[in-house]
């Protein structure tokens, strides 16, 4: 097996051995899905219309920002980073494998939600699966990239928790998945507008691609890749 493929395979397996990944990628999103599905659809039947996009955005945001970022942190710590570098293992292979492992896990839960939500809670199917998945991938990619960037910025687990929560909580509260985006006051909606989750919610509840949201999500990707490249360069240039 090629080294890059093996690294992806190993990282995915290692993630599955991590209780943190089981909690953040699978258990909490699925439990939250059942709780929200049962309670909200009973109290507010209109929730059925947005249950699927809401839950997949929640799953991806939590999984990437809290789960994926946490599994990458040990690799960014100096002794591990140096051990890998001294063995000729490119750090980029670790970042790529973290990205792919996160993608696989979150897709599994997304498909679970897509399959179960209409059956269990009478949730509405996406108006257009092409738009839904297009928007979903355009959201998942930058969200995972943020999950990769955060441990490159944080020096330890406590700082990573602060950084992760600083992105996770606004993504939950200001993106329109908890409350309609239009109801937010001006300043908060401005903050919400710079979050990928907001644009994902706008795309995934439409039947055609809103071009502005599409461009914003697309714009996140090169910007985040540049930031990751810069941080990786800083980390690897000199360990001092």
């Amino acid at each position, binding site marked *: *097996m*090629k*080294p890059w493929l*093996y*690294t992806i395979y*190993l990282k995915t*397996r*290692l993630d599955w*051995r*991590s209780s943190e990944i089981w909690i953040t990628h699978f258990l909490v999103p699925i439990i939250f899905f059942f709780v929200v599905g049962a309670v909200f659809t009973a109290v507010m039947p209109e929730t059925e219309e947005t249950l699927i996009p809401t839950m997949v955005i929640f799953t991806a945001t939590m999984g990437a920002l809290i789960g994926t970022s946490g599994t990458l942190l*040990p*690799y960014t*710590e*100096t*002794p*591990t980073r*140096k*051990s890998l*570098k*001294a*063995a*000729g*293992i490119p750090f980029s292979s670790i970042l790529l494998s973290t990205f792919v492992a996160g993608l696989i896990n979150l897709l599994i839960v997304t498909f679970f939600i897509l399959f179960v939500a209409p059956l269990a809670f009478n949730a509405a199917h996406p108006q257009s699966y092409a738009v839904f998945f297009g928007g979903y991938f355009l959201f998942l990619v930058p969200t995972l990239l943020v999950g990769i960037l955060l441990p490159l910025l944080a020096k330890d687990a406590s700082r990573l928790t602060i950084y992760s929560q600083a992105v996770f909580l606004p993504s939950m509260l200001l993106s329109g998945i908890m409350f309609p985006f239009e109801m937010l006051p001006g300043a908060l909606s401005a903050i919400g507008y710079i979050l990928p989750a907001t644009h994902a919610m706008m795309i995934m509840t439409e039947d055609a691609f809103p071009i502005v949201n599409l461009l914003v999500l697309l714009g996140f990707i090169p910007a985040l890749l540049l930031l990751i490249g810069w941080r990786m360069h800083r980390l690897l*240039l*000199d*360990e*001092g």
Partner: protein
Amino acid sequence: MIKVEGLHKSYGANHVLRGIDLALEKNEIFGLLGPNGAGKTTMLEIMEGLRTREEGHIDIMGHTPAEAVRKGILGVQLQSSSLPEVMTPLDAMTLFCRWRNQEVRTDLLSRFGLEKEMKKPYKHLSMGQKRRLHLALALAHEPGILFLDEPTAGLDVEARVALHEDIKNMKKKGLTMVLASHDMAEVESLCDRVGILVSGRIKKIGSPRAIVDEVAGETIIRVKLATPHEWPVFTHAERHGESAEGHVEWQTEDALEGLLEILGHIKKNDLALLDITLKKQTLEERFIAIAKEDDAE
């Protein structure tokens, strides 16, 4: 095999390496000694391609350190190596070998006593097992040069002895090794040559014996008599002090003449001799003296 010329490195205003020149021969074990903060780890990590340098040239079998890492010429056991907690020795060995396009070296895990721990998560390995794992990983691609930074730090006596045997066996197989250590006995017994790094400069270089022998007056003669005695002043031995156990000590530049003079005095005065020993200065004492010389400068 390895040539280092004019190596300089600073961290901000802290000038850690101030012009290191060094040449290592094939199949040599070179020991790097130095007090804490002398720049040992920085020097090794520059040679291992893990850190940048400001000035200087490093040639490792015709390659830069980064090229030598890529080509698998170097094997590196870092002072503070680590792996993710959930990774097993087998996972790590497989990962490291895949990146070198070679068969997975489970034989090395067995050789270093990790056969039963192959599938144990890294977090459950003991300090000694972790050290041995990192040594096995460093050797997986059969490098020509091995860097060992404090390889026995934190190991118990048994593991330390086993690792020393491994190092000796690796030398027999033709490996060139650079060993940084605080353990003078380890360096003295394993290394062909030693460099003493103080304040970013190599102050002494040579075989451990040569470094110890180059100083005059390093022999201490210790004598213990049955009864107290007023000793005269000797020509070839200078009174050095008295130990808590009642040994009188002389320091001499000429051990034979000094000894003959003291023994002659004992015989002439018919003194009852209980104990007499000759003590050469150890590498540790020599190292401390060199470090102190630097402090005085």
